[in-house]
């Protein structure tokens, strides 16, 4: 049997998927300070339970920012190509995807077979990324995972700064005015949805769009995004590992 592995080394977490014509297993670990170590470790954790070794893998495909700094991969693809391929496999009805990653946000439009047609990435700053959420959550003494539940049913405060640093001072100002934490969190999520929808406006989405990345687990953000963009958003199973899956599929098809 032909086996391929896709490994997506992101800034926050490293994802791996084992593929043999269909997705067999996936693993996610924190990237930590050594992307190459994370790559090796996630591979081991993926193969061991299946009783496989590196020699059983016909192609090891790397993606994510960590793909460039090591000799471990047989082949690499950009995470843009991989995300599109992965989403197309999981949600064949989707015409594009939004991925809010740790370091950047991507909006990708693709055609038949998940081939990328156009894409927009955010600037080289934290605006509209997972990092923005993390920094602002910290200001409020919260974990990112708490944000969705808090924001539910809250009236969103008006937050204008998309710069993580300025947003922090804006939040402090709002707290001083007595605005509730719930409102501020809802406002933050709304501001991200607005920001991403501007990016999405550059790609002419028509139908279902996939929402990927760890942030896709945030239900409130998903609803807000869907409203702003005017499309149905679908979150694929295990939205963090879509890039790694795409890498494994691309390797399998080579």
């Amino acid at each position, binding site marked *: 049997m032909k086996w391929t592995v896709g490994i997506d080394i992101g800034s926050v977490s490293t994802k791996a998927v084992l593929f043999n014509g269909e997705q067999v297993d996936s693993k996610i670990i924190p990237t930590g300070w050594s992307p190459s170590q994370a790559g090796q470790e996630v591979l081991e954790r993926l193969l061991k339970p299946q009783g496989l070794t590196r020699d059983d893998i016909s192609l090891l495909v790397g993606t994510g*920012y960590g793909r*460039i700094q090591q000799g471990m991969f047989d082949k690499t*693809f*950009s*995470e*843009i*190509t991989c995300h599109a391929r992965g989403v197309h496999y999981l949600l064949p009805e989707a015409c594009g995807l939004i991925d809010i990653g740790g370091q*950047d946000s991507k909006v990708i439009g693709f055609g038949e077979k998940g*081939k*990328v*047609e*156009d*894409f927009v*990435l955010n*600037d*080289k700053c934290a605006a509209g990324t997972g990092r923005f959420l993390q920094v602002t959550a910290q200001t409020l003494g919260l974990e990112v995972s708490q944000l969705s539940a808090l924001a539910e049913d809250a009236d969103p405060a008006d937050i204008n700064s998309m710069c993580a640093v300025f947003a922090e001072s804006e939040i402090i100002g709002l707290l001083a005015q007595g605005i509730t934490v719930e409102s501020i969190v809802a406002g933050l999520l709304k501001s991200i949805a607005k920001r991403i929808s501007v990016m999405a406006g550059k790609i002419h989405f028509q139908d279902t769009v996939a929402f990927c990345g760890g942030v896709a687990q945030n239900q409130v953000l998903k609803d807000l995004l869907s409203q702003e963009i005017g499309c149905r958003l679908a979150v694929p199973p295990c939205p963090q590992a879509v890039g790694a899956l795409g890498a494994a599929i691309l390797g399998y098809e080579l």
Partner: protein
Amino acid sequence: MRAQTMAYFDQLIPSGMVMAKEAKEQGRNVVGYYCVFSPIELIEAAGAVPVGLCATKQEPIAEAEKVLPRNLCPLVKSSYGFAVSGKCPFFHFADIVLAETTCDGKKKMYELLAEHKPMIVLDIPNSSNLEDRQAHWVKQIYRAKDYFEKNLDVKISNEKLAEVIRTYNEERKLLMELVSLNKLHPTPISGTDLLKVLWGRSFQFKRDEYTAKVKELIAELKEMTAKGEGASQPSSKRILITGCPTGTGQEKVMQVIEEAGGAIVLQESCSGIKGLVDLVSEEMDPFEALAEKYSKIPCSCSSPNTGRFKLLSRLVQEYNVDGVVDITLQACHTYNIESYSIKEHLKKNHNIPLLQIETDYSDADRQQIKLRVDAFLEML
């Protein structure tokens, strides 16, 4: 494979720095310029050496930011920083600077620079359909003529100017012959090497030697091609570069594209072929002919800039281009806005995708650029 003749062009700017000093010691006049709108034939006809001024490196930007706003185009900041820090020998040895009102940032920067060097600033009308555009340009050419005659104590004759125009036309034809070699696939010369040759043209003091070396390079590349050697792979996607000027020292984006396996076929920008595709008429009055040629350069500072759309349409077909990369310098509003229209134009009329890279001269965004470039090449 790389042509051996490239060694000459690798050394062109460093040796030009030495020659600028020698030219001054020999009592020659030197006129520095920044932009492809500068009618350099007029400088040569005034018996002076036309030389490009340093403008495309990160290094002097900190010095410039003591005076200029941080949120300004890096080209403008770098030009100013080079000039005032004394780190540009060409600026140092220039008697006069020939400048132009291409964009607001440069225009205002020149006001500050005028305290450091005598300068003449040509007024470039920003409406491409201004009724008396040609007349306006002719006036600017004569203004520059009068300024050179007075300040360099020379006379510029019709005959001399006509002669220089012929020489420069020959040089343009020769450079286009070189560029045209990249119609072949795989491309015989890399985009960064082509840049070195074209950019170096503004920094040389021995025109005959330069053209002789270009001829040598063409011959060598033809030989290499005959042997099946090229600068890219048969599988390489053919990329055309457009947008803001990309000079030596800021090849970052082009390097990333070539490292990722893309073949840069040519540059449609003022650091590329923008000023070379059209010749100066040898039939008309030479001053009117100069005005006509320079007024037609399809720069985004002109509105509407239909010439650029036409030129791009022609190039993507002639050079069989797979994708276009538009390099926009941060805070360059005209190129940044025009990028949208160019993208739509290429998609609609040629089904060719465009990737816009907005960047500056620092190396900080190299990884972000690599991701975009990798993805773009994968989708072609």
